[in-house]
């Protein structure tokens, strides 16, 4: 590949900017990939009239690591490890969607204990992700103390994840067929301690922000989007529910036993940045409810399927049983075969609808994996949301969409 000098001319983008930019009336400003408020490596080309955004052209791909292509070269279990790294703030949720897709493709049942623990960890991960959202969103709007309070609570959740899987973030704990191992004895007291401590902490954040005139001033009436427009532009999750439509995949197409838990789905009325904030704060409380119910009703039993064709046998069996040894060998050297066919499984990530399109070809490696990621879909709507607002509001809008660039670029 020859090394050409790096040049971007206006010709390629002429169809995106207004005529005023070509005449020099408006300014083209680069909010570059390195920017503290773009929540990752997001490059925005802003066409500014003074400080008002006339148009905003997102440029993504700086964090593209070819995860989908890489997964085609690995077996289903090896590819699971790569799913953590798409949306790195919702690692448990990524594992979950991929495992649900694999289990649907090979028609594998997951025992109830594993489903309940999956729900507990997914909801804790949702709270952890919302804490990062709140921390960075508030930090962008100059509420700097909220940042460290949120990260202090997030440490409690990361400690729980470390108890289960040994890893704070890239856990790969949820595997096709169930879990990697059963939760150790320290898990339940740690989660109960978190459930005791956390509600008052959410109250603390709300005391700092919800009725704070500075915060309200910067978020009320910004980037109002109607329900129909939100659906047209593919918004899902809290970004959609802030505008009104009641669409939560945990209620609409339940998975992992969500239908048995009692929880509310908060909805916003106006569809501005403030409503999306309120929706996410309330979602944290509802996640606590789900974790409480799941933990109270945690069934005993196996933590993974006993179908040895897909799930490895416990190591103690290898010394006694020839079949176990053969299964172990086949799974480690070749992997398990999946039938020819395609499935699409969608789950509710903290950002919105996270979907996994998985196509098998009869072999041990996925033929095609595609992650429908909410951040990619939401960034598309950013130019529409940002039109006519100030640059300072743009920072609030990006924060309210809750994008993670690993999610957007994969």
């Amino acid at each position: 590949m020859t090394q050409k000098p790096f040049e971007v001319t206006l010709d390629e983008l002429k169809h995106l900017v207004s005529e005023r930019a070509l005449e020099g009336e408006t300014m083209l400003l680069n909010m570059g990939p390195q920017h503290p408020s773009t929540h990752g490596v997001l490059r925005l080309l802003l066409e500014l009239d003074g400080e008002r955004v006339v148009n905003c052209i997102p440029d993504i791909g700086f964090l593209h690591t070819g995860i989908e292509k890489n997964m085609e070269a690995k077996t289903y279990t090896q590819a699971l490890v790569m799913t953590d790294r798409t949306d790195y703030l919702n690692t448990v949720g990524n594992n979950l969607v991929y495992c649900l897709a694999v289990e649907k493709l090979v028609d594998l049942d997951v025992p109830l204990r594993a489903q309940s623990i999956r729900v507990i960890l997914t909801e804790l991960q949702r709270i952890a992700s919302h804490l990062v959202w709140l921390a960075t969103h508030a930090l962008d709007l100059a509420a700097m103390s909220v940042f460290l309070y949120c990260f202090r609570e997030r440490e409690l959740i990361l400690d729980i994840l470390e108890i289960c899987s040994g890893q704070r973030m890239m856990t790969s704990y949820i595997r096709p067929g169930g879990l990697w191992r059963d939760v150790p004895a320290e898990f339940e007291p740690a989660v109960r301690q978190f459930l005791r401590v956390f509600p008052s902490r959410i109250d603390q954040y709300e005391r700092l922000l919800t009725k704070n005139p500075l915060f309200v001033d910067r978020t009320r009436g910004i980037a109002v989007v109607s329900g129909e427009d939100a659906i047209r532009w593919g918004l899902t999750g809290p970004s959609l529910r802030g505008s009104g439509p009641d669409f939560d995949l945990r209620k609409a197409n339940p998975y992992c036993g969500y239908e048995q838990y009692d929880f509310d789905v908060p909805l916003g009325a106006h569809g501005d940045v403030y409503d999306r904030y309120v929706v996410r704060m309330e979602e944290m409380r509802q996640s606590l409810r789900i974790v409480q119910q799941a933990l109270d009703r945690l069934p005993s039993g196996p933590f993974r399927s006993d179908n040895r064709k897909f799930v490895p046998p416990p190591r103690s069996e290898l010394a006694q049983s020839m079949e176990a040894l053969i299964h172990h060998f086949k799974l480690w050297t070749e992997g398990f075969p999946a039938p020819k066919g395609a499935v699409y499984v969608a789950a509710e990530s903290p950002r919105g609808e996270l979907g996994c399109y998985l196509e098998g070809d009869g072999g041990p490696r996925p033929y095609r994996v595609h992650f429908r990621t909410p951040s990619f879909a939401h960034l598309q709507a950013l130019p529409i949301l940002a039109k006519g607002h100030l640059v300072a509001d743009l920072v609030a809008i990006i924060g309210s969409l809750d994008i993670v660039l690993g999610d957007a670029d994969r």
Partner: protein
Amino acid sequence: MDVVDQAVEALRAQMRDAIPAVESFRGETTVVVRREAIGQACRILRDDPSLSFNLLAALTAVDYWPEEPRFAVVYELYSIGHQAFLRLRAPLSGSGAEIPSIESIFPNANWHEREVFDMFGITFTGNSDLRRILMPFDWVGHPLRKDYPLGYEEVQFSFNHEEIDRRKPYARE
């Protein structure tokens, strides 16, 4: 009759020749649509009030090289009112991989189609902004095609140090 069956019936009734097949696998329904008719199919599914598949959940493609038809563009539609998914699949041949864009029906198809263009080289006629999105703007090749290499970097040991050094791109002085 649930809404997915209703949708298949409506599509079959209004677009008989353009629906070669309807597949069902693991409880999911896939309607195979001829590529020229994809816009009509999406319009029927979105605008019919009893169907109202109003959310384009996902738009992606699969490469079956060296089989023909080489590509299949996969559309995942969701009805928020009926809480049901439906998949549309449009096979494309490898030479002349073009399909009408559905951006006029679902505006959020824009970036998804850009991603499929970037990764597979499938042209979406009528897309207002068809250029690369994930790869750099001057990249040559379409990475997710099956004949595109995975691309490992060769490890530079001492025995092949000079050989690799010659090929490695360095910054210009």
